[in-house]
């Protein structure tokens, strides 16, 4: 799984996953719904910085900078798109708010183990039982989906490497067919492994 989790003992690390999820969702929504104004952008950035400080003190600000850097192309894409249609000031203010919201959402993954999130999701989705949906299965499905992403990346890399080794030209068909075959094979194997570990 794409795990961002970093071990720590901050208030956010110690907070149970369920309430933390709710708190961060509220903060993300609040930041997202603020108006396009300089004060709102300032508040968004301040909320983000304070939240990261609660997630590990001053060292966490370095993590915030890393996460921001990881988003640089997304930020650039947002900024350029809005510069064209809205002009410089709204573009900068909107981008600041959206970036703060994304960074706040990332804080959940940075301070919460996937196992704890899985448990919290299972509890949170418990009402789905009334419509005959098993919350454990939904939570597991989300986990497995995320856990499969690095494997899909590796399969894509292997297929490209095999094509290069055989001197094949890059093309959608020559890539898609072996990629799909290998992805489906992985799905079969993962299904067997899950069944063998008692997941039904």
């Amino acid at each position: 799984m794409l795990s961002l989790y970093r071990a720590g003992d901050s208030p956010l690390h110690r907070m149970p996953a369920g309430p933390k999820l709710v708190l961060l969702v509220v903060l993300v929504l609040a930041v997202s719904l603020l108006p396009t104004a300089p004060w709102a952008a300032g508040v968004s950035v301040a909320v983000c910085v304070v939240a990261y400080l609660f997630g590990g003190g001053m060292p966490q600000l370095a993590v915030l900078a890393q996460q921001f850097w990881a988003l640089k192309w997304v930020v650039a894409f947002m900024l350029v798109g809005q510069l064209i249609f809205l002009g410089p000031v709204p573009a900068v203010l909107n981008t600041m708010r959206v970036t703060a919201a994304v960074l706040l959402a990332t804080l959940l993954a940075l301070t919460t183990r996937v196992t704890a999130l899985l448990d919290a999701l299972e509890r949170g989705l418990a009402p789905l039982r009334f419509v005959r949906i098993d919350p454990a299965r939904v939570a597991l499905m989300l986990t497995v989906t995320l856990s499969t992403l690095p494997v899909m990346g590796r399969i894509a890399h292997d297929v490209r490497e095999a094509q290069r080794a055989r001197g094949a030209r890059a093309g959608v068909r020559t890539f898609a067919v072996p990629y799909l075959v290998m992805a489906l094979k992985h799905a079969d194997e993962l299904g067997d492994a899950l069944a063998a570990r008692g997941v039904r």
Partner: protein
Amino acid sequence: MVISLHDVVVRLGDVDALRGATLDVDARTVAVIGENGSGKSTFARLLAGLVPAASGTVRVLGLDPARDVTELRRRVAVIFSNPDAQIVMPTVAEDVAFSLRPQRGHRKEDRDAAAARVAAALARFGLTDLAERPAHDLSGGQKQLLSLAGAFVREPELVIADEPTAYLDARNARLVSDHLLADSGHRLVLATHDLALARRCDVAVLFADGQVRAVGDPAEVVAEYEALLTC
């Protein structure tokens, strides 16, 4: 009898992967050998309840894999050749803990007991220092050790391993084999192409063309297999 098959047919698509296989084995470690396509892996998957028998009777630890699935999952663990396909959770410790989810309670004592079992499994397979590492970043050998930890943390009565050393170098293959063959209260069914490894088991079973061709002392069964290869 640990494993009992009588006239079992397993159909995979249009192909009969097992064709009237009959076998009774009661030993702590059983090696399953044979050429590719001989039925070894199908046999292992049949015992694990992952493929159904089209006809015949199958008993594993006295259970019918098709009917007693829940009980079978509780008492039997499976190791596959590709460790990548067995990783479900992001970190090493979480992946081992995942094996206990289906049987874990929600009380604090249950969680603490599960955590202690996970810590013991990590220590047993030399993974304690890697506990917080992303599971997908491990080497092939470490990933297979993680698979073993995920299987053994459940304290299974029977471990079914389908070519568990296929992707490993000699050193890691030896390490994984030693762990599997060690007497820790479990029984082992080991499908393998490694004939030296097969010789270390108590009993060997030779599959050919979807049928059981020989059962008995590993040295004799391996010799029979090697004679077939030179024909």
